[in-house]
């Protein structure tokens, strides 16, 4: 069966520091991969999605970036975190478009 791993579960970072969140999927090949953010009191907002290695689509302009160095690995990065980057970050995968997305357990990011 397929599983998705996301780490770390919680992270506290100072303003201006870099960020790297990692997500890996097991048990499937060539999944579609997604990064979402849930800010306090808001719904899930799609940040990036990828349909293949090196293929990244960005939905919202921001100081975050995403990379997919391997088929089942998706990384969310920032060179300099802002206070507004605080939130709950979720990675998800789906077998193809317009299919249910399956989520990891998320990373709670707090910026100080």
């Amino acid at each position, binding site marked *: 069966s397929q599983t998705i791993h996301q780490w770390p579960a919680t992270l506290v970072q100072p303003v201006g520091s870099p960020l790297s969140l990692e997500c890996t999927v097991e048990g499937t090949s060539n999944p579609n991969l997604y990064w979402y953010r849930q800010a306090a*009191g808001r*719904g*899930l907002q*799609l940040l990036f*999605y990828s*349909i293949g290695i090196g293929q990244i689509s960005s*939905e919202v302009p921001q100081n975050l970036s995403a990379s997919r160095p391997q088929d089942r690995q998706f990384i969310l990065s920032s060179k300099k975190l802002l206070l507004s980057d605080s939130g709950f970050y*979720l990675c998800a995968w789906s077998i193809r478009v*317009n299919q249910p997305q399956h*989520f990891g357990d998320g990373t709670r990011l707090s910026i100080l």
Partner: protein
Amino acid sequence: DQQVKQNSPSLSVQEGRISILNCDYTNSMFDYFLWYKKYPAEGPTFLISISSIKDKNEDGRFTVFLNKSAKHLSLHIVPSQPGDSAVYFCAASIAGNQFYFGTGTSLTVIP
């Protein structure tokens, strides 16, 4: 601009009764809808989906209804159980990767 809205942030229901969670959307081009359930400190878990060519889909205690003319989606849980207490998100997409999520409704099932 919030294209998918869940106007009730919370709902309380007695165990054994029906829970009805509602969702409204603004984009008539949405053709695929889903409901997710989320427990604290966990990611959302897929519950049930419906295509725009249908108006109802059932899976056990969960039924999703779609009213395209009203741009309204609802999730019925019958009978409600304490383990159903969670935050429920609806989501919609237009034949692609971009799913738009509502802000969630927190359901509490009272034993």
